[in-house]
C-alpha cells in the first residue's frame, strides 16, 4: 500500500518536476499556466463538492463547519507557540508562518483525493466544505498575533504602536480569489440542475486527474526550487515545517474519526487539511498584514518543506494513522 501510494501518476509527476529541478533542467512552465490550472482545479473540486451536497446530512455539515472554525483558530495558535519556544523566531515571522499552517493547501488536498480515488476508497464531501472554511480564521489569528507583537514592541521602546487598519485585512481574509472560486463553485454545483451539471462533468471530472498531473509537475519544479534555498531559512524553521504537519495531521485524525465520525477517507482528508500549509491564498495577505515578516520564510517553508513532506510521507502516513486509530 505505502509504496503503491507513491506510484499514483500525480505523485510521480511531482517527483519528476523535483527531479528536473535537481538536475538543473531548463524545464519551465509558461507564466500563468499553473495559476490557470489552479483555478480550474478549484472550480472542479468545488462543483464536485456541490454536487455531493445534496446527499449531505445537515447536522453533520454544521458540525463540520464549526470544527473547521475551531481548527482554523487552534492550529495557528499551536504553530505560533511551537515557533516561539526559546524565542528563536521573532514574533512577526512566527505570526505570519502560523497563519499559513492554520490555513490549507488545495494542491495537497487534491493529491490526497487522487490517492483515495486510485485506491478506490470512498470519502464524504464535508472536508471540501471545511477546506473553504479553514482559510479565514487562521489568517485572522495571524493578523491578531502580529498586532499584539507590534503593541509589545512599541511598549518596549516607549512608543505608541501604529494603529492596524483591520477592516481591509479582514476583508482580504474572506474575499481572496481561491475561496471565492471554491465556495462559488460549491454553491453552483449544489443549485444547478443535474442535467446541466452532466454537461459540465467531462471537463470538471473526467479530465481532472490528468490536469492534476500537469499541475503537480510544476509544483515539483517550484517546491524543489524553494527547497534549494532552505539553508537561508535555517534548521529551526525547517524542523517546524516537518513537525507542524505531524501535529496538525494527528489532530485532524482525532477530530475526523472521534468528533465528526467520518469514514476512513473523510478523516484522512481532514488530517491532510490540518497538516497542509497554504502557499497561494495566505502569502499575499501576510505581505500586506505583516510586512515586518520575511516573506521568503513562509513561502520556502510551505512550498519547499511541508508540501513535499505531505505528498511523499504525510499522505501514506496519515492514511495508516486513520486506519489504526479507527480500529482502536
Amino acid at each position, binding site marked *: 500500500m505505502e509504496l503503491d501510494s507513491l506510484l499514483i501518476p500525480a505523485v510521480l509527476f511531482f517527483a519528476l518536476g523535483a527531479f528536473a529541478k535537481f538536475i538543473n533542467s531548463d524545464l519551465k512552465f509558461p507564466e500563468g499556466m499553473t495559476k490557470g490550472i489552479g483555478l480550474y482545479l478549484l472550480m472542479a473540486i468545488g462543483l464536485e463538492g456541490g454536487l455531493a451536497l445534496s446527499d449531505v446530512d445537515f447536522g453533520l455539515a454544521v458540525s463540520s463547519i464549526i470544527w473547521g472554525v475551531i481548527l482554523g483558530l487552534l492550529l495557528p495558535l499551536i504553530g505560533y507557540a511551537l515557533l516561539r519556544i526559546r524565542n528563536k523566531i521573532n514574533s512577526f515571522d512566527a505570526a505570519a508562518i502560523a497563519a499559513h499552517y492554520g490555513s490549507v493547501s488545495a494542491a495537497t488536498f487534491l493529491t490526497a483525493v487522487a490517492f483515495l480515488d486510485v485506491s478506490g476508497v470512498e470519502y464524504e464531501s464535508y472536508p471540501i466544505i471545511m477546506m473553504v472554511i479553514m482559510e479565514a480564521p487562521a489568517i485572522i489569528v495571524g493578523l491578531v498575533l502580529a498586532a499584539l507583537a507590534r503593541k509589545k514592541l512599541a511598549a518596549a521602546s516607549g512608543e505608541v504602536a501604529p494603529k492596524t487598519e483591520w477592516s481591509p485585512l479582514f476583508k482580504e481574509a474572506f474575499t481572496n480569489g481561491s475561496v471565492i472560486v471554491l465556495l462559488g463553485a460549491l454553491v453552483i454545483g449544489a443549485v444547478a440542475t443535474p442535467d446541466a451539471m452532466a454537461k459540465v462533468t467531462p471537463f470538471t471530472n473526467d479530465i481532472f486527474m490528468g490536469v492534476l498531473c500537469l499541475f503537480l509537475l510544476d509544483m515539483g519544479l517550484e517546491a524543489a526550487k524553494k527547497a534549494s534555498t532552505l539553508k537561508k531559512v535555517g534548521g529551526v524553521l525547517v524542523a517546524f515545517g516537518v513537525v507542524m504537519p505531524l501535529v496538525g495531521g494527528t489532530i485532524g485524525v482525532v477530530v475526523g474519526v472521534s468528533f465528526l465520525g467520518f469514514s476512513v477517507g473523510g478523516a484522512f482528508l481532514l488530517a491532510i487539511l490540518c497538516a497542509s500549509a497554504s502557499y497561494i491564498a495566505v*502569502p*499575499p495577505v501576510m505581505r*500586506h498584514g505583516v*510586512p515586518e515578516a520575511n516573506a*521568503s520564510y513562509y513561502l520556502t517553508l510551505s512550498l519547499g518543506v511541508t508540501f513535499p513532506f505531505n505528498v511523499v510521507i504525510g499522505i501514506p502516513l496519515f492514511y495508516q494513522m486513520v486506519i489504526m486509530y479507527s480500529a482502536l
Partner: protein
Amino acid sequence: MSATMCPGKSVHIIVNATFENELIRVLDKVGVTGYTQLDARGNGYSGVQGGYSEGESNVMFIVLVTTEVAKILIESLIDYIKRGYPIVSYACDVDVLITNKYGKPTI
C-alpha cells in the same frame, strides 16, 4: 530638444505585485496624470522574485512627472516605505513629448 519636448522626471517604482493596487492608490493621491506598469521579476534583499505566484512577482511603475510633482511623489514613497513596505525607486531626467491628441498636459 525641440519646443514640443519638455523637461521632467521619470520616476520608476519597483514593488511586489501584491501591492499593485495599493501603489496605484498612492499615485492617485499624488495626482499624477498617468502611469505605465510593467510586470517584472527581480532579486534584492527580499530574495528572488521569480514570477511563480503573485507574491513572488514585481511590478515596475514608470511615472512621468514634472520636477515639482516628482518631489511630492517621492515624499509619498518615503512615507510608504516608513510604514514598513519594501519598494525600490529611482528617478531620471527625461524630455517628455508634450504634444498629445487630448491637448492636455502629459506631465
